[in-house]
């Protein structure tokens, strides 16, 4: 119970910090929007390929932009933690009776909360562009996958922050998330991929997350055969990256 309360407190602080630092807040707001508009606008014509089966390219891009927004939410919480590590706040927390696990649960929950915000922004932008919400259940599925991806990417970023202990490690956090999304089915369905990317996307868990949330967006129904691989991929990512974030935490005592 106390773990939860401390986590909530730290999450609230993390959210507040992001809101108060414009150089962190503005990009986290603008980036998913930019990705949505620039992708759907520049590559609009690609939607005419038979692999798209007549789907609107804006609707096709919404889940990708929302996922990217969730990824940014995760990165941001890692950056805030890195700043805390640099500034000494983390040391003070450590010497306090706050449960260890809360030190990473806080930023993680903040990232998840922020992903709800970025996903909503992407949905609103989509509606302005003429793509309505795909129905209650499907919309919730997309929110759910974004929440899971935000949790996974924040674990990644937290792990980097705890090891590097400096906000200068931010480019590494960003690069990996960027590449993991773009080296999947970010722009076209898997059948339309050519050459090396087809192989990479096949082994990239983000492919299955995007496919699941895209299926919800485009069909408006939840097709189980499209959804479960996304759930498995999310669970796998969370497991591996959760361990990545937890490992340095157990070694904190030695420092």
């Amino acid at each position, binding site marked *: 119970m106390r773990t939860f309360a401390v986590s909530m407190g730290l999450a609230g602080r993390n959210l507040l910090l992001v809101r108060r630092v414009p*150089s962190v807040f503005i*990009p986290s707001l*603008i980036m998913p929007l*930019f990705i949505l*508009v*620039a992708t759907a*606008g*520049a*590559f*609009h*014509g*690609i939607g*005419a*390929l038979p*692999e798209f089966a007549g789907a609107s390219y804006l609707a096709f891009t919404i889940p990708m932009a929302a996922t990217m927004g969730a990824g940014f939410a995760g990165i941001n919480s890692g950056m805030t933690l890195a700043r805390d590590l640099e500034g000494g706040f983390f040391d003070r927390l450590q010497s306090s009776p706050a449960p260890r696990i809360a030190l990473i649960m806080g930023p993680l929950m903040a990232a998840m909360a922020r992903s709800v915000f970025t996903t909503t922004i992407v949905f609103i932008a989509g509606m302005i562009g003429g793509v309505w919400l795909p129905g209650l259940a499907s919309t919730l599925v997309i929110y759910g996958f974004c929440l899971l991806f935000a949790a996974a990417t924040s674990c990644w970023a937290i792990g980097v922050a705890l090891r590097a202990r400096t906000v200068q490690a931010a*480019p590494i956090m960003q690069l990996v998330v960027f*590449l993991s999304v*773009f*080296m999947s089915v*970010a*722009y*076209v369905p898997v059948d*339309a*991929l*050519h*050459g*090396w*990317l*087809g192989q990479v996307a096949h082994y990239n868990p983000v492919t299955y997350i995007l496919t699941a949330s895209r299926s919800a967006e485009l069909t408006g129904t939840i097709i189980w055969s499209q959804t479960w691989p996304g759930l498995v991929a999310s669970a796998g990512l969370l497991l591996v990256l959760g361990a990545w974030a937890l490992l340095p935490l157990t070694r904190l005592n030695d420092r």
Partner: protein
Amino acid sequence: MSAAALATRQTAALAWRSIITTLRLPQAWFPALFFPLVLMAIFTASFGGAPGNIPGFPPIRGFLDFAVCGAIVQGVLIAGTTAGAAFATDIEHGFFDRLVASPTSRVSILTGRLGASVALGVVQALLFLSIAAIFGARVEGGFWGIVVVVIIAATFAAAVGGLGVYLAIRTGSGEAVQGMFPLFLALLFFSSAFFPLATMTGWYHAVAAVNPISYLVESMRDEVLGGATIWTALTGIGIAAGLAAISISASAITLRRRLRVAS
């Protein structure tokens, strides 16, 4: 030694210094090579089915041939931003003031920076074309096609370099110059740098159609894909030269104003 010869030597020395500082810092040159090349590879693998199969995209040899010029322009933009940030760091750390206090010719402070940008732009264009060639792209325009692509890239690098100097003097902060980068990246995406103008619709098409970057990249692309004429080449060079004239004049004016305040 005449004043002109002296200024030339100082320009060369300062340009060399800029190039060396760029090469010594991986965080200065890595993004300018890595991001455009990775995006080029991802776009080529994602949109390989587009040419000849969607309305507004004529059949071509391969998407890589189409993508390489957009990658060059993106690389030049990123390199220019890093160079601008480096100049701002020079101002922050006092190197600029020491230069001003020394008998260095005022012109070479600017031309040194621009010379480095142009040199790096040439290298970047040749490198990207070579990498694309390894993966099967071909410049239909042959030797002169490559020359035109490199001239446009180099002139555009001067334009971006001038913009970097202007922003560096105005803000005096490397972080602020870096922070403006997403703006330029946006400019590139809102053009036909990565996909043909004819496939775009609505307001996005309208924006890309008035974006000079569209025509700059298209004139380079004509050299790669074939169908270039002396006019398409001159259009590209003209746009790059026009942008360079604007940004370099702006940077020269701010530099002079800054020096007047300093003296």
